[in-house]
């Protein structure tokens, strides 16, 4: 293997674990609050995104990796979002077509 000198900073994983755990609980609570559907979906999606970032950046050490790896990792997410936004208008269009 090439050089194994590790450029990963130390970090407090217990705290990280706690944060993500709280976010999970938070999502469940939000889903139980009986808010209007859109708000709850928004909130849950937001919390989920935060967890996603925490896991990716800290657990998987992405924030210590060089630019290229960040590019690759985030591009994969970007293209999927692109796909969703590209197709969403199509799937949303269907009900109104049926009822014509």
């Amino acid at each position: 293997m090439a050089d194994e000198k590790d450029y990963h900073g130390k970090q407090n994983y217990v705290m990280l674990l706690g944060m993500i755990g709280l976010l999970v609980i938070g999502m469940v609570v939000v889903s139980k609050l009986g808010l209007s559907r859109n708000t709850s979906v928004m909130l849950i999606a937001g919390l989920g995104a935060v967890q996603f970032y925490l896991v990716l950046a800290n657990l998987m050490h992405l924030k210590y990796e060089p630019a290229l790896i960040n590019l690759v990792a985030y591009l994969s997410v970007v293209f999927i979002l692109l796909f969703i936004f590209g197709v969403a208008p199509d799937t949303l269009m269907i009900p109104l077509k049926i009822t014509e």
Partner: protein
Amino acid sequence: MSAHHEQSFLSKYVFSIDHKYIAKQYTITGIIFAFIGGLFAVAFRIQLAWPGTDIPLVGVLDGMKYNMLVTNHAMIMFFWAAMPILLAGLGNFTIPLMLGADDMAFPKLNMLSYWIFLVSAIVLVLSFLAPGGGAATGWTMYPPLAATQNVDPDANFLVNLWTGGSLLILAVALEFASMLLGGINFLVTSINMRAKGMKLMDVPAVVWMLNLATVDFMFSVGPLIAGAVMLLFDRIFNTGFYDPARGGDPILFQHLFWFFGHPEVYVVLLPALGIASEIIPTFTRKPLFAHKWIVIMAVSSAFIAMIVWAHHQFVAGIDPRMAEFFSITTIIISIPFAFIMFAVIATFHGGQIEIKTPMLWILGFIVFFYVGGVTGIFLGSAGFDMYAHDTYFVVAHFHYTLIPIVFFGGIAGFYYWFPKATGKMLSEGLGKLHFWTTAIGLNMFAFPLFFSGLTGEHRRIFNYSSYEPMMVDWILQVRHVATYGAIILAAAQLIFFLNIILSAMSGEKAGKNPWKSNTLEWVADSPPPHGNFTTPPTCYRGPYEYSNPKRSGSDFWPQNEQ
């Protein structure tokens, strides 16, 4: 790994972890399948020209058989011929050699990906033997047809798995997995194992293009793998992802399919352009015109390629506003390719052009690919695609893109690197004969189809007798000419095999650098030993320093020389 160590026959030729042998395995497998696919094409071309003829091996074609041949012709040519030859074969051979590396980053992974590929090929062949014959749904596998054909909802899932459609989907998924692993290998190798002193712009354009192709593949194939699994489940577990009768949405599959299916075209196109950008400077003895910009444009085209997919679905019933957006992006993508083609053409001016066989093939590639390229504008324009979609205009268009890419580009690369791969030269005379016959075959076959397509002759019809306007005299003539062309195209490849056999028996020895080229692969012996380079080369300059005034004596300046 250490250079030059003894290997048993099996570990050297069969379970080889040497990138050069894996490249040869890919290429040979690809050529075999290209031959099978070609025979399929000849068979249904004969049916089109002379309906109801009893064709040897396949018999008289009815609608089902015809659809099956068309479907598997496309599938084989795309996934089991173009991909292994132009991506896996070319990449495995050139990337380590041109970067001055001793092998791929993960040789064992490399071997694994070839063997997965071979398994996928075997599954494909099995799909022909399944009850009901192979898949006959068109290569796009649009559900609900693909989700229900030959499927018995009450039978258990093994029965439904043992059908042409299911096996084909399985084979495609396996093939993608193999190419994905191979792609990881390409990228890691090109990033980590470049020769000492090789900066990004010293990397030859073909390696750039291969990596771009791999990136496009990696980021676009996921949705189709997911979609293929869902389609398979629709077939074997009676789920309803795509079948409206079970509550699904057939258009969703089309999106999943084309999100991959369009970048796939660039996955095979970019390596071909890369081959051109290697061969042209070598035989014009000139630097590649605006090398940096060609790379930049290739990168941008690789990105735009990800957001044009829906132009295959203009008439599929998608949201019309979306169609307008995708029409614009589709026509925008012509800009980077226009630039690349202009730059390539500019490279010829003021050179010392020697039209050896590889150069001849590349000239053919440029001219014929131009035809395919400009006719792409017609179809990219949603307004006219409404009429031309699914007619022979489309067929002619994509045969004018893919045959130049895979045949002309790929074979040019083959003639160019064959001396390096085997140490023997190929015969110039036979090579030129091969070129002219192939060129005649292509144009006889594809060009007339533009006209019959314009009259609205729609595709995938096994017998036009039910359509009066399609039975007029000149269209019948067009079908005959096209069929003769297809037969010539197929027969011309025999010259190719003859050429290879002759060179294997009595080809003249190729030196280390028969074409007087700059890039690093020509530093190694031909054929390069296991481990490629006796001493790892160091890179001092860009790959296209031909006729540099600073260089006295010779008109080329290898990358590894001070």
